């Protein structure tokens, strides 16, 4: 059952990254769209993510619940030492979710829209940025459980070049995912071209920030290069990700949307695999060189057994229903 639970945990994180990420990305795209095209972008976006945004964000909750039920030590270590970025991310989630719904359901469309839009766009940027910072910090080895002073315990644990680079990298990946997703959601040729452009920019910036992550890792003494290149799985994943980059550009120019989506998802998945495989099952790396491993901190057997059962049962109920939701609303209106 341990493996079932861990699989669901990884799946939850991955799907949140892909689906929630595309969802954040839509806001990022809006942020970087010129004013005159914004309202059209907004409309496409609403049609595309309106019905599914709530479900997309459930993956985060699933991952968190698995963590605190199955791996309480990991959950509490993160919540103590990464309190500040978690808090900012939460504020972002609150601001974004509510602004998104409010702007659509406000019965009178007036100046308030301006405010909702602002909040929505900026929080769409801030939230994945801090999400990336958190992800970066967990593996960066800056969390210091022996720290005596406030700064080294609660601030330097996440405020370092590596985490920030990962944050920016995450933002550009989200934007990329969203742009690719949106291409298929519009019929208007003009819009389509704009989203293709956006996808290209986002892809370029993802590559640039990706390079920055490696450089920052060197600065912060994180053996990222070893993890990725001295390990067959990591190496294969990164090679596949790079190869798919070429295919991706080709498809982008051709405007083949459905395959493109799958490929973009695949690419992001490979990147996550490349970064995390080498130190799996270690989840958190600590400053003193120790690591908190999934297997060593796993909860008591009965808990894991019932958690795994609940997850399996839940997915039998959820997945068909969710698939139907995506299917039903993905097709454009005639």
């Amino acid at each position, binding site marked *: 059952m341990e493996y079932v639970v861990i699989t669901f945990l990884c799946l939850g994180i991955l799907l949140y990254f892909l689906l929630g990420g595309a969802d954040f990305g839509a806001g990022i795209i809006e942020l970087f769209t010129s004013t005159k095209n914004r309202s059209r972008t907004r409309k496409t976006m609403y049609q595309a993510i309106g019905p599914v945004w*709530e479900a997309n964000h459930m993956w*985060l909750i699933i991952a968190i619940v698995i963590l605190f039920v199955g791996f*309480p030590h990991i*959950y*509490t270590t993160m919540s103590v030492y990464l309190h500040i970025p978690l808090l900012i991310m939460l504020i972002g989630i*609150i601001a974004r*979710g509510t602004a998104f719904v409010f702007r659509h*359901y*406000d019965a009178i469309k007036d100046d308030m829209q301006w405010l909702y839009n602002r909040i929505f766009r900026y929080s769409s940027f801030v939230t994945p940025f801090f999400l990336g910072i958190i992800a970066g910090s967990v593996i960066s080895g800056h969390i210091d459980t022996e720290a005596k002073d406030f700064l080294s315990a609660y601030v330097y644990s996440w405020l370092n070049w590596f985490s920030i680079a990962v944050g920016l990298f995450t933002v550009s990946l989200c934007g990329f995912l969203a742009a690719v997703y949106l291409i298929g959601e519009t019929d208007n040729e003009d819009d389509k071209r704009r989203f293709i452009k956006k996808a290209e920019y986002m892809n370029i910036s993802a590559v640039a920030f990706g390079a920055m992550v490696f450089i920052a890792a060197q600065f912060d003494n994180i053996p990222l290069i070893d993890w990725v290149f001295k390990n067959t799985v990591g190496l294969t994943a990164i090679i596949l990700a790079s190869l798919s980059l070429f295919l991706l550009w080709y498809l982008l120019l051709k405007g083949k949307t459905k395959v493109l989506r799958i490929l973009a998802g695949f690419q992001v998945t490979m990147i996550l695999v490349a970064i995390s495989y080498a130190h799996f099952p270690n989840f958190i790396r600590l400053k003193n060189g120790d690591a908190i491993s999934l297997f060593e901190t796993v*909860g008591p057997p009965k808990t894991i057994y019932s958690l795994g059962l609940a997850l399996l049962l839940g997915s039998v109920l959820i997945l068909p229903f969710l698939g139907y939701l995506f299917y039903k609303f993905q097709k454009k209106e005639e």
Partner: protein
Amino acid sequence: MDDFLAARSQMALSLGFHIVFSCIGMVMPFFMALSHYKWLKTNDEVYKNLTKAWSKGVAIFFATGAVSGTMLSFELGLLWPKFMEHAGPIFGMPFSLEGTAFFIEAIALGFFLYGWNKLNKWFHWFTGMVVGVSGLASGILVVAANAWMNSPAGFDFVGGKYLNIDPIQAMFNKAWFSQALHMCLAAFTATGFAVAGVHALMILRNRNKLFHLKAFKIAATFACIGALLQPLSGDLSAKDVAKRQPAKLAAMEALYHTEKPAPLLIGGIVNEEDRTVKGAIKIPGALSFLAHGDFKAEVKGLDQIPKNEQPPVAITHYAFQIMVGLGTFMMLISVLYFFNLFRKKSFADKPWLLKLFVFAIPLGYIALEAGWVVTEVGRQPWIIYGIMRTKDAVTPMPGIAYSFYIFSAIYFSLSIVVTFLLYRQIKMVPVVYDQPVEVK
């Protein structure tokens, strides 16, 4: 403000905020489903419009409920890491099932809100029901988790270690049934009265009477059934508390001294210094009866509880009085309502009754919050009753006061915006839904 106090306040604020929205999310889908059903059966456009109008409100509330709930699942760790480290694996079962319920709820809501004219109409109706049922299920599950904090079960506590953990047993602890029942009824009562009151106000103002009368009737019927059953379930809860948490019961009733038989206090000013209550009306033997079903039974007072295990008395007592007082009042309104319903009088001709409902708009929610204060403050100083103290569970990170200020500001502004949005929704009802009904 010290960190411990700040953490407690932030937790209380977040939960108090979330509960309002989650109750609406639990209950409104049923109102909608009923109205939707009537539309499908009678083809009366008014019911369709009502369903749509309500569903917009629900979308706003649902989103607010969802984000504040996401916040909570992190906050448990951010504020109470020591608690979660031990409690997570034990009381996590309801949370993991709750995750499933939420997920289904979120998916079904997607179908329901965006499914007009796209889905088979009965499937569409069904998705609305699914939203309600899974919302209710998540409410019950999370309350079962809270009940575990009141009545820990499913593990052996040996020398500071939590052994032989059994999450299923933990979920079905002694308090879960009475708390979950009382909570569900409270959700129907509070949301029902709030919704019915708003529509009553519109009827009084002579706006879209046809629309608002139908809305009023649906909401008020749910509310009043809830309000009639609530005291019964409250009595069940009180007997339960007497058995498992005598300290909480004594604090609820400000019973400083063990008495046999014990009187029930109504009102009164508590003086925590000299441990007395002034100016209360005493009903002899009534507390003995409420707690143990026997007018002569002995009821444990605070004098039998060690000093460092006594909850704050004044807050618990006042909160309990508020809940019971409002509960009794709403029960009386319900009696009047059903009396008029069965005599088949139109409510439009009963302005005094409508005015009572308008007055009752906030009462259910006040009772609901008060009830939680009883439960949570009455459990102090324990976070896990009898096992772990709240102050031992708080996060080591300093400066929680700032995060409390930030969240107070966020919740405050969200409340304002939500109220504002709702006001606008209601204001727009005549414009959006008042077109003459086309005859097909």
